[in-house]
């Protein structure tokens, strides 16, 4: 396991081990076209209080990785085939049902992509925010609702007390995502997993929600896994970045490093395809040619090979391992770049 990324040293750490260690995670789905490996031997760490961004296109396996941590993959058709998810030293994949339920919503909370459909339309917002407090903290509903009111004002929902009895359809998209954040914060989780929390929102609202999320996780010293396809988001909010392609990690590095010196052709392609204010005027955006990989039909070698400018015979034949190219900087590519 010499190629595994080391835990970040830039963030506060628990005695020795990082808060979360994902090791060799493999998650597959049964489909009409056969078994699809959505996540293939993915390993990464998250230190306490750290913000790690997982970046990739749709189908790169980033959401499946996130859902696999809390074992929320619908089975069937999904299945976590192998690997370890060590959270505070315990392997979440080996816990019995009751023990994993005790982790969900308590020490690890999730925020989902679609605030429109991720809240229950038939239950009041207060009830939905208070629910984890009642469940995990064994507090009475009255006490849980009082805490829910505090949480709603914490996420800047005006007039929180009177909105407890409102239903999700009476809120705007941005407000609903604030409710989701309040719900995630309910039990002071040590880790929050946010699966594309702003993708469904207006651009103006996106920045507000991310700033709020960052501020609140900093205050509560929660670690954050931010799943996104937006490298702009990553630059502003993440300590460390994991870049995924075709279900595998292709590069991982501290955010600043990755921006300064992207070492994988895919990462460089991503960088070149986003507009930069500090870029040379007149320079053109360069799209990555070709299509994202078909997970049911991955090439035997590097998944990016068909789209890569530096591709060689070796890339098509063998899978490049994740190797250190700098301090806490790893990438999976045969070519020096």
């Amino acid at each position: 396991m010499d190629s595994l990324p080391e835990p970040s040293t830039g963030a506060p750490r628990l005695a020795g081990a990082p808060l979360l260690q994902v090791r060799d995670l493999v998650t597959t789905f049964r489909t009409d076209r056969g078994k699809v490996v959505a996540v293939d031997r993915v390993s990464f760490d998250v230190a306490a209080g750290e913000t790690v961004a997982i970046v990739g296109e749709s189908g790169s396996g980033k959401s499946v990785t996130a859902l696999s941590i809390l074992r929320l993959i619908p089975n069937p058709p999904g299945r976590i085939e192998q690997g370890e998810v060590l959270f505070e030293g315990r392997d979440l994949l080996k816990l019995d049902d009751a023990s994993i339920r005790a982790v969900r919503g308590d020490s690890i909370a999730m925020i989902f992509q679609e605030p429109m459909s991720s809240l229950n339309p038939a239950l009041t917002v207060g009830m939905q925010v208070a629910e984890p407090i009642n469940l995990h903290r064994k507090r009475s509903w009255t006490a849980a609702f009082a805490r829910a009111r505090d949480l709603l004002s914490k996420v800047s929902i005006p007039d929180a007390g009177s909105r407890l009895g409102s239903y999700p359809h009476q809120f705007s998209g941005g407000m609903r995502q604030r409710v989701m954040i309040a719900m995630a914060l309910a039990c002071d989780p040590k880790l929050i997993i946010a699966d594309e929390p702003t993708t469904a929102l207006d651009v103006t609202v996106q920045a507000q929600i991310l700033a709020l999320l960052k501020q609140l996780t900093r205050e509560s010293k929660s670690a954050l896994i931010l799943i996104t396809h937006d490298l702009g988001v990553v630059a502003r909010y993440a300590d460390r970045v994991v870049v995924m392609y075709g279900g595998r990690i292709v590069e991982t590095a501290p955010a600043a490093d990755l921006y300064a010196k992207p070492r994988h052709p895919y990462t460089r392609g991503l960088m070149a395809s986003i507009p930069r204010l500090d870029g040379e005027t007149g320079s053109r955006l360069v799209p990555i040619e070709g299509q994202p990989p078909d997970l049911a039909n991955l090439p035997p070698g590097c998944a990016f090979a068909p789209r890569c400018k530096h591709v060689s015979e070796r890339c098509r034949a063998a899978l490049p391992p994740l190797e250190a190219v700098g301090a806490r900087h790893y990438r999976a590519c045969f070519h020096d770049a």
Partner: protein
Amino acid sequence: MQAYIARRLLALIPTLFFASVIVFVTVRLIPGDIIDLMLSSNDISAGKLSRDQLEAALGLDQPMYSQYFRWIGAILIHGDFGKSLWQNAPVAEQLLMRLPITFELGFLALLVALAVAIPIGVYSAIRQDTAGDYIARSFSILMLAVPSFWMGTMVMVFPSIWWGWSPDVKFVHFTQDPLRNLGQMAIPAVILGCALSAVTMRLTRTMMLEVLRQDYVRTAWAKGLDERLVVTRHALRNALIPVVTLIGLQAPLLIGGAVILEQIFVIPGMGLLLLEAVSQRDYPIITGVFLIVGVAVMLINLLVDLSYGVLDPKVRYR
């Protein structure tokens, strides 16, 4: 809310008007009218009368529209449904006696249907494609395929052959002896309820499967809730909205089924009354029964619409 109910009740008036016209006219179009029956039945009093005299005596010599307005006027003004053409007894009295029995049977059957359909439908959905699911679904198809009159007949015939047991023939009212009454009602209610439960169960299962795939159910799992809470608190309520609609649509079937089972189990409800009335062409009774059934079905559907407001917070009545 009150305004909504008031408007809905007002909207019943034109519907009921058309329903009453249709009922009134169609029963008089059944081939073989009451006069023929009376003349052929060797009734002593009727035997002495001519056809015209009989018609005049029963008020059937008037044009149909004037008969209709006399009939509907009496109902609206005096609540008088007219008199049976055979027994000369007030129809309203008969209806009042028979109605509660049929409604009791219908209500019990509905309870059975829901008690069977919802738990099995939910179970079938959360254990999709397991042996239990297949058994539940086969049971539902069986219930759908087996007509309740056949089931009723079998229950009458076989236990009496095997164990010499047969249902009570003498009907006991609920007010006289509730336990004995429920004992008598149980078998027809279960047969009717199971027949109705089939469709309800399948819809409950389909809706649960649909709802269990929703994002908010994943959110509920992510909060750490156990299956019981995910299903009862987060999924069931959303899944039941279309099921309630179905129950409203089944109200006429419920009454129709009750009519048949009353006949088999000799329960003196509206069904038995209607059946006798139709075979005797006793027009005031037939129209009276139909009118009451129509009002009941419409009121049940109003209740169904009102229950949406309880289940779905997005529904507001204006």
